[in-house]
């Protein structure tokens, strides 16, 4: 890594801030994600919203919405750079690791925003009962970190493919499975009376270790994807 007087945090922050600014102008990814999320939620609510389903089912539906919304928007952070041809400039001017952290941060923010919008709507539009608020909060946070952590590297990979299509979802799904299992099980415990933070300790452990492992692996592998 080039030795520089500016620290890694500052550089990452710069990448992140630039991405936020650019995104704010067009709001492309944000629109894609939120639109997808709200549309899917509406379909879910319409079909099974008032049927008083189990906590498990609501948890599964919730994360299906989040997962597919994420698939529709998280690749944007790299695809935009390649399409707009700004990727080359970024490669030359910014530190590789800083680029990763910045993009990771952006995807995390995008996901957090998605969750912040969908969660209250979901609870309002379905019969799901939130028994353990604090647990859900932790799961949403860890889920966002894990999801962003696992998919940012994949987003970088597919941005270099000639035909993108559904490639992002195809590559992400197998890798996200442990995370999906963790968040769905954990959310089930948040939506069921008998659940709670102590009950969900194994899920929380899983989610934390998943996030740490995936981000670490991404940091190590990112340069091979990013640098030409």
């Amino acid at each position: 890594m080039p030795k520089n007087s500016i620290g890694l945090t500052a550089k990452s922050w710069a990448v992140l801030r630039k991405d936020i600014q650019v995104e704010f102008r067009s709001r492309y990814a944000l629109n894609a994600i939120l639109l997808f999320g709200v549309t899917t939620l509406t379909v879910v609510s319409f079909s099974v919203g008032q049927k008083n389903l189990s906590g498990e089912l609501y948890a599964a539906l919730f994360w299906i919405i989040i997962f597919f919304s994420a698939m529709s928007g998280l690749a944007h952070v790299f695809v935009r750079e390649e399409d707009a041809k700004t990727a080359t400039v970024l490669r030359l001017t910014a530190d590789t690791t800083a680029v990763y952290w910045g993009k990771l941060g952006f995807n995390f923010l995008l996901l957090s925003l998605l969750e912040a919008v969908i969660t209250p709507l979901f609870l309002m539009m379905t019969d799901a009962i939130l028994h353990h608020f604090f647990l859900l909060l932790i799961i949403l946070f860890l889920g966002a970190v894990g999801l962003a952590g696992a998919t940012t590297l994949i987003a970088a990979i597919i941005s270099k493919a000639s035909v993108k299509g559904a490639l992002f979802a195809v590559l992400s799904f197998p890798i996200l499975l442990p995370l999906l299992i963790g968040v769905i099980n954990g959310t089930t415990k948040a939506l069921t009376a008998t659940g709670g933070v102590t009950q969900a300790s194994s899920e929380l452990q899983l989610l934390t270790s998943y996030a740490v492992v995936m981000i670490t692996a991404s940091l190590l592998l990112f340069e091979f994807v990013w640098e030409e």
Partner: protein
Amino acid sequence: MVWKIVLLVVMTWVIVGAFILPAPQQAIGEASRIFYFHVPQAWVAVVAFLVSMVASVRFLRNGNRLEDDRARVAAGLGLLFSLLATVSGSIFAKVTWQSYWNWDPRETSILILLLIYGAYFALRTAVTEPERQARLAAVYAIFAFVTVPFLMFVIPRVLPSLHPSDSIVDESGSFAMSLETSVVFFPSLAAFTGVFIWMYRLGRRVTTAERLRIEE
């Protein structure tokens, strides 16, 4: 050359023994014979993943395209064997528990392996430039492999394991196989591994030869 003859003999013995000798799990009946083929297939699928991952790491380290050839061939075989394992496991599940799919931990893991291999080749076909294709595929293979520990240790804890899917192998955690079963099972493991190695070497030679020919 000799070892190929040995392989022929061993596999023939395995097939004969699998159907002539008593069924490995009397409680389940004749269908349990699939065990002799299903488990080695899954084993090879995992070994193939390991080989592919190691070759991918080497490729990223030294940029030698030979390593990429290795990774690609191993992945192709991994795809084949995980497909075989999923199908044979599904047949076994249907005959024994009357349903083709149950989301039992082992079933889920082999399915995920299949999905990873599928994704690997979807990625390869989507990147046309050879150097880039090799590099990105290698990264994905390694990244996907990182999730394997989670699959191996986490899923069994989280998914309900009510089904006695491992009743044959893991009954008491320790060695639970009778002599009659061992006499067919272990040779089968060796034979399937032998077939894998043979196909791997062939595939590698063909892939490398093809690549060198194109590069000229």
